[in-house]
């Protein structure tokens, strides 16, 4: 089932810093959507405001037509919006299997995730390529696998929309490449994928649609080919002289 996450007029400020200055965007699950922008452009703040970590100062979030602005984080998680974190979060001293089990026991409560695609933690771990680490504790794994585990935990909750916050940060070229394949596979299952990243090449390769934020404002929003040629975007990324 296709889903739509609509964000309109989202505003958030921290003291004198305006992190989001009225951002409008629509995230449809049919497309893989990328959000790019320099450091401090408001990307993570946007995710945090959608997911209930922050209460936005203004604006609306609608999920399949239902307003969810300012609801607590766990309610958003139960509605089928799952997210990962920049710092590759896990339940560090629990086993990899238990990490995924906990997620599978919670998460989305609506029954319309027609195929509960993974009937066991092992199956989900196989999907993300971590089955051999099931009995290890999460903090014993290398960083790249920790990133995958974060994605597995998010998927465990049977989400309809994934929001991935810099999933490839700190990974090398081949690890990022493998992640791109994983995101495609996730999208093929009918789960909406929206990600933040700095790696413009990777994003251009993976995403159907790009959104560019700059100092809390949206400066571009459109099909990837058009956005990467946009003059404003090139100026922000490469500097005015180019």
């Amino acid at each position, binding site marked *: 089932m296709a889903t739509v996450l609509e964000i309109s007029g989202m505003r958030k400020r921290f003291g004198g810093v305006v992190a989001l200055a009225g951002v409008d965007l629509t995230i449809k699950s049919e497309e893989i959507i990328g959000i790019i922008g320099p450091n401090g452009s408001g990307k993570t703040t946007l995710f945090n405001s959608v997911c209930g970590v922050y209460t936005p100062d203004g604006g609306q979030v609608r999920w399949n037509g239902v307003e969810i602005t300012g609801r607590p984080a766990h309610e958003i998680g139960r509605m089928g919006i799952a*997210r990962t974190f920049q710092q590759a979060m896990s339940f560090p001293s629990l086993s990899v299997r238990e990490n995924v089990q906990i997620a599978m026991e919670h998460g989305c409560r609506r029954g319309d995730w027609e195929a509960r695609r993974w009937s*066991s933690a092992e199956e989900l771990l196989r999907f993300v390529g971590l089955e051999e680490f099931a009995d290890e504790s999460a903090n014993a794994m290398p960083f790249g696998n920790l990133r995958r585990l974060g994605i597995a935990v998010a998927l465990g909750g049977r989400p309809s929309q994934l929001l991935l916050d810099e999933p490839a940060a700190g990974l090398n070229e081949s690890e990022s490449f493998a992640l791109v394949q994983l995101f495609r596979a996730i999208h093929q299952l009918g789960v909406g994928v929206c990600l933040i990243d700095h790696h413009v090449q990777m994003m251009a390769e993976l995403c159907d649609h790009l959104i560019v934020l700059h100092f809390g404002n949206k400066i571009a929003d459109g099909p990837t080919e058009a956005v990467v040629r946009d003059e404003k975007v090139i100026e922000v990324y490469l500097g005015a002289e180019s």
Partner: protein
Amino acid sequence: MAQWGRRLNKNPTSVAAVALQAKTRPPVGHAKGGVHPSRTFIIVTAVVVVAVLALPWMHPGYRLLSFAVTTCLTAIVLYGMAVPFGQAGIMSLGYAGLMGFGAYTAAILSRDLGMNMWQAMPFSALVAALFAGLFGLPSLRISGHHFAIVTWVMCELLRITLVNGGKFTGAATGLDLPPIGKAFGLDMDKLANAYLLVAAFMLLCMLATYLIANSRFGRTLRSIRENEQLARAIGVNTDLLKLTAFMASGVFAGIAGDLQAYNFRHISPDLYGGAVSMYFALMVMLGGPRTLFGPLTGALIVTFLPEVMRIDPIDSRIAYGVALIAVIMLLPGGIIAVTERGYRWLAEAVRGARKGVSSPGADSSTA
């Protein structure tokens, strides 16, 4: 970008291939959560249960037996503490106070309504659980030692309230209770029988804690301990679960209070102040809050050690302080957790020497 494109075209990748396979593969049997008890673990548990219940037949003497009663009463509270502290990772210093709510509820119900120990028990448990929830409320906003200090203050406030409660709470003198009478055909005026009753409750509480730790509820509490923000993101209502964990532990404390009131037959505010709470915290950390035998071991050591070593009560406080620092620095996870690790290491070494291969050893932890 060109490089990315090339690689994508050439490489029908492993992950995607695996991903698509995963859809068609038959589902693997649902993994049961928790620890499957090993044989060693079952044997050790059986030995402990038998030893606890057989104590009265070993001619222990009155003094030792009354210490054993205290140990069991304390251990009941500690098994309660093990739920929020061991599983959810939240340390509270209010447990003597919660035990006090249980004890005073029992004493007041006995005095005003003529209830006996059994009739008062559900009320003691309920009142202690409600106040445990109240004591736990600050944990939704503050954490770590800030929260511990707030709960310690609450415990002290209770003690001060009891001292100033006039006739209702018996003020500083406290309240008296009637004897338990007969239970299960045994005369509870005999200390050995009273011990058996309290020991049976202690073993039940041990079992309850084990079942909680190995349930879905226990797993969810561990997710809060490990990473609260992530737990919330996957849909765990962390606020509600923390309060539930506190209230569950309050039930243990309330039952312990009811049993204590009827075993001591006199209760006073001093039994339920902040200092006692500190001792509880020491015991549970010493033994190890995440292990099945940790709370019992902690209660045993702290109750019996001054007696065995004949230390002055004031000096023993210094010894406890030193012991606590030593445990935190040298034995993280408590004595039992370290013993287990040692045993596993030894078992593997022995097996390795015998077969030349290593395999996992015993596992008696509840989490």
